[in-house]
């Protein structure tokens, strides 16, 4: 639940209402309109999962990456840390620790996928 001064419907209830409208009235339409309604419905699922999981997953990813990159990086944002990691991988700084890097990157990708499309996970 997002904290907010707004009246009901809550963000979740609004998403639900829009989703019902798309599924009932728009998705059955032929062609691009129906197809885009399906895309829009899927986007609502992403927003809902992001509201539920986003803050927790972001903190976990950030902490893991800060640990990998070293203590001096502990105040950087997740985006900044990922930028540093890209630079370091390209420079070959992690060539001796690639499986460790890959492990960290896998967890970060899993976090994004859990929000955007959890059905895509294998196993």
């Amino acid at each position, binding site marked *: 639940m997002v904290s907010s001064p707004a009246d009901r419907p809550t963000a979740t209830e609004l998403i639900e209402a829009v989703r019902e409208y798309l599924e009932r009235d728009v998705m059955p339409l032929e*062609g691009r309109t129906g197809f885009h309604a399906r*895309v829009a419905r899927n*986007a609502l699922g992403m927003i809902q999962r992001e509201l539920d999981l986003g803050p927790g997953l972001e903190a976990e990813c950030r902490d893991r990456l800060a640990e990998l990159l070293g203590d001096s990086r502990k105040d950087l944002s997740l985006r900044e840390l*990922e930028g540093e990691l890209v630079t370091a*991988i390209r420079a070959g700084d992690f060539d001796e620790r690639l499986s460790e890097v890959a492990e960290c990157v896998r967890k*970060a*990708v899993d976090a994004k*996928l859990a929000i*955007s*499309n959890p059905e895509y996970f294998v196993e």
Partner: protein
Amino acid sequence: MSRLSPEEITARLEAAFDRHFGFKPTIANLRRLTGGASRETWSFDIDADADSGLPGGLILRRDPGKTPLALERSTEAGLLSAAYDAGVPVPQIVCKLDDDDGLGPAFIMERIEGETIPRKILRDAEYAEARPKMSAQCGEILAKIHAINFEDLGLPAPGDAHPVDDQIKQYRQLLDGFGEPHPAFELGLKYLEESKPPLARLALVHGDFRNGNLIVGPDGIRSVLDWELAHIGDPLEDFGWLCVRSWRFGEDSNEVGGFGHLEDLCEAYEAAGGDSVSPESVRFWEIFGTVKWGVICIVQAFTHLNGLTRSVELATLGRRVCEMEYDVMRLLPW
């Protein structure tokens, strides 16, 4: 060239037929087709008389704006003609349009009836007999494409370096330009750079040969679409791309487009005159294709975010990028 309303397109098409063929047909059933989020494909019918030699069902391909990573429309039209002559199943070009037609870079081609929506091709009973044939058909078609003489097609000639080098460089630049770091793709590019197989030969590569760009009937593949990513490169690139997990549309155990197996593809390719291909050598190009599709999704999402083409479809492609990151991380050896 900007977006045009259906009425404007109808009027300009009528005028274009008048200019190129000397008659003004009635344009009917004009509708925009799903697919090709940034470039426009319109289907329409004309009341062509038998003397004109024109088919009644036609397709207009046009660009509302500039798209990176894709060919000019005129080069695409030339490629389609060359493929047609080589016996590749493709629509025949009816007319290349020019600036005076007012439709932007565009051409008109015959409309081939059939299904392109992958989920229907993979699941509908109508295509149950087509599916087991399609992997071998792809092999045969790819052998024909890779045998086309690519010298006079107007495609940029590759330099002396391995053809993958230029693309790796291009993808790095694109990735850096958007300011959204993707460590998974950086690992993928590092692997590609360090593991590239020796280049056996150069060939015309379709560049987007996959489920979704094939017109399929109950009898199998009827046409190969979307030549706009064609280039000169390693023919195995088309094999890897066809096997990228996104194009399996949920049928993950069928590694070729969700409909078939790599062994059938390679066997048919060889039988049709193509080089011998080992399934292992396709893996490198599957990783390459997965990174490439991830980069294209980012480009597409930013086409929306930068305001060039606002679209919920393009926007959500940005959220599909992590699917390709996930697949790359599954394919890498580390």
